C-alpha cells in the first residue's frame, strides 16, 4: 500500500492528539508515515507515533524549520512529495495547518481540501459547510491530494507500527525564510486542554453576565476535564479572552460533547460548534434556537443548573 504522509503536530516534544487521529485515518487508506518538523523529537515521541501505526518517521528536526512562518514546513513536505510520491498528505486543519496545506498545494501543483471531517476510499473528503447546514463530498482531481482534517474527526486507535526513522534534510530557499519568528510569547494557558482539540467543551455566553461569573463555567469544565469556550457576546464584553471564542469568526470545535450555557445559538455561533457529536444546552428562554440542536436541554437559570451539575459530576466520579 502506498504511503500517506501525516504532518505531526507537537508541543514540547509531545505528539498532539490530532496527529494520532490523522495516523488512524491514514491507516484506513494506506501506510502512515509521520513527518516530524522542528526540534523536540525523542523517545517519547517515537513511542507514541509507533503506538498509533506510523511505519516511518521522516525527521527534519532542525530549529530552522520553525524559525520562519509556514514556508519551511511547506518546503519540507514538498521535498517529501517529490521523493516519496505519497498517495496523499494529511495535515491538521488548524489555522497554520491550513496555511501549510495551501502553500504545499501550489508547490506540488496539487489540489487541496480544507476542513475535512471524514475521509474515505479514493480520498473522498466529507466537509460540513455553511455553519453545518450542508454536507458535501469532495476530492482532489490533480496532483497529490492534500487534505487538512479537522481535529476530532475520528477516534484515535492504537495499532503498532515500526516508526523507522529517516533523516530528511532540506535546504531552505530565501522565499521560505522571508518571515522570521523573532519572539514567542506564551500567554497563560493553565491545565485545560486546547479548545480545538478537547473532547469536551463547556461554553458560556451573554447569560453568564460577567467575567467573574465565568468561574462557574470553568468549574464545570474542570469537573469534566473540558476546555472552556465563549460566545462572541462574552468575548466582546471582555468577560473571556478572544482566543476562546467559538464560532464563525472564532474557533471551530468538533468535540464529543459541547455544553452551551447562556448562549442563544445564533447561526454564527453554530458555525463553530454544530459538528459536535452531543450537544447540551442550558438556557432560561425555552425559545432559544440552541435547543433546536440540543440532544439534551434544560430550560432554567444557569446559576442554579450549572453549579448543581458540577457538584453532581464531582459526586459521581
Amino acid at each position, binding site marked *: 500500500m502506498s504511503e500517506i504522509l501525516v504532518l505531526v503536530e507537537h508541543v514540547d516534544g509531545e505528539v498532539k492528539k490530532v496527529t494520532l487521529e490523522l495516523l488512524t485515518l491514514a491507516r484506513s487508506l494506506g501506510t502512515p508515515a509521520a513527518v516530524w518538523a522542528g526540534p523536540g523529537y525523542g523517545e517519547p515521541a517515537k513511542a507514541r507515533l509507533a503506538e498509533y501505526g506510523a511505519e516511518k518517521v521522516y525527521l527534519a528536526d532542525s530549529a530552522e524549520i520553525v524559525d520562519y*512562518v*509556514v514556508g519551511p514546513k*511547506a518546503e519540507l513536505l514538498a521535498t517529501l512529495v517529490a521523493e516519496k510520491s505519497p498517495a496523499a498528505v494529511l495535515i491538521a486543519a488548524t*489555522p*497554520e495547518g491550513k496555511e*501549510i496545506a*495551501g*502553500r504545499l*498545494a501550489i508547490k506540488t501543483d496539487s*489540489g*487541496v*481540501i480544507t*476542513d475535512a471531517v471524514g475521509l474515505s476510499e479514493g480520498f*473522498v473528503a466529507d466537509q460540513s459547510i*455553511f*455553519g453545518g447546514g*450542508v454536507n*458535501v*463530498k*469532495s476530492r482532489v*482531481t*490533480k496532483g497529490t491530494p492534500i487534505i487538512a482534517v479537522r481535529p476530532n474527526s475520528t477516534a484515535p486507535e492504537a495499532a503498532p507500527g515500526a516508526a523507522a526513522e529517516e533523516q530528511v534534510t532540506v535546504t531552505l530557499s530565501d522565499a521560505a525564510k*522571508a*518571515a*522570521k*519568528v*523573532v*519572539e*514567542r*510569547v*506564551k*500567554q497563560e*494557558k493553565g491545565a485545560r486542554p486546547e479548545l480545538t482539540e478537547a473532547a469536551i467543551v463547556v461554553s458560556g455566553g451573554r447569560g453568564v453576565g460577567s467575567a467573574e461569573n465565568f468561574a462557574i463555567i470553568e468549574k464545570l469544565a474542570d469537573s469534566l476535564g473540558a476546555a472552556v469556550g465563549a460566545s462572541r457576546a462574552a468575548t466582546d464584553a471582555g468577560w473571556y479572552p478572544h*482566543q476562546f471564542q467559538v464560532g*464563525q*469568526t472564532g474557533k471551530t470545535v468538533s468535540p464529543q*460533547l459541547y455544553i452551551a450555557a447562556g448562549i442563544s445559538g445564533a*447561526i454564527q455561533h453554530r458555525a463553530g460548534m454544530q459538528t459536535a457529536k*452531543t*450537544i*447540551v444546552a*442550558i438556557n432560561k428562554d425555552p425559545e432559544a434556537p440552541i*435547543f*433546536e440542536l*440540543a*440532544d*439534551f*436541554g*434544560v*430550560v432554567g*437559570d444557569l446559576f*442554579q*443548573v*450549572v*453549579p448543581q*451539575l*458540577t457538584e*453532581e*459530576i464531582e459526586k*459521581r466520579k
Partner: protein
Amino acid sequence: MNIVVCVKQVPDTATERKLRSDDNTLDRDAADGVVNELDEYAVEEALRLKEAHGGEVTVLTMGPDKAADTIRKALAMGADKAVHLVDDALHGSDALSTSYAMAQTLKKIGFDLVILGSESTDARTGVLAAMLAERLGVAQLTLANKVEVEGSAVTIQRVTDYGYDKVQGSLPAVISVVEKINEPRYPSFKGIMAAKKKPVQKLGAAEAELAADQIGLGAAWSEVTEAAAAPPRAAGTVVKDEGDGGVKTADFLSSKKFI
C-alpha cells in the same frame, strides 16, 4: 506605500446559503451579498497604515458583477480606488485558481503590501493569504492581531494557540488580519458620496493575462462530487428546571458515558 486590500463578497450569513444544484458551486443569487466581515478589518488596517505612512489603498475584488456593491462599501470606508476582476471564465475557481488569478493581477497592478482577511465566512478555507505569499514569493505575515511598519520592515503579532509569535519581514509582503485587530469604521455620508466617484477598473481574464487552463471550474484542482442539506439533528429532550436540572443533566451525561 502602495497597499492593496483584498475584499470578497460573500452571501449574508443570516440568510440561507446553498450550493447550485447544477454544478455544486456557491449559489450567489440565492442570498444577499455582503462584504466578508473580516475584510472590513483588513480595509480598516489598510486605511490606518495609509494614515500613518502615506500612500494609496486599492481594493481588489474577484467576483461577479454584483460584487461591485462590496467594492463601493470598501471605497466608502475610505479606500482610494478599486480593481474588479470579473469574468464568467472565473466562475467555479477553487483556491488554487483564485490565488493564481489574484496573484497575476497583483503582479500587474503592483503593491508594497497586500492585506487580506484571515478567512472568508462562506468557504472558510483560510488559505488564500498563504497562497498569495507563495505565488508572489514575498513574506507571509498572516493571522495578525497587530501590524507595525517601520521603513521597509514589517512586524506583526501572529496569533497562535499559546499566545502569539512576533514575526518580522520586509516589504513587499502579504498580511492577513484576525478579528479584534481594530474596530472597522462605518462609512460616513461624505464617504458614501465620494465613493461613487472613485475609479473602479474592471479587468477581464484576458486583460489580467490569465491562462485559460488555470482558472474556472474546468481547471479546478478539486471537485465537489455530492452535496446535500445536512439531515436535521434528531430532536433532543428538553426539560424544565424544577430544582433538579443539574441532576437531570448529570443523568444524561452518565447515560452517554461522559461521567
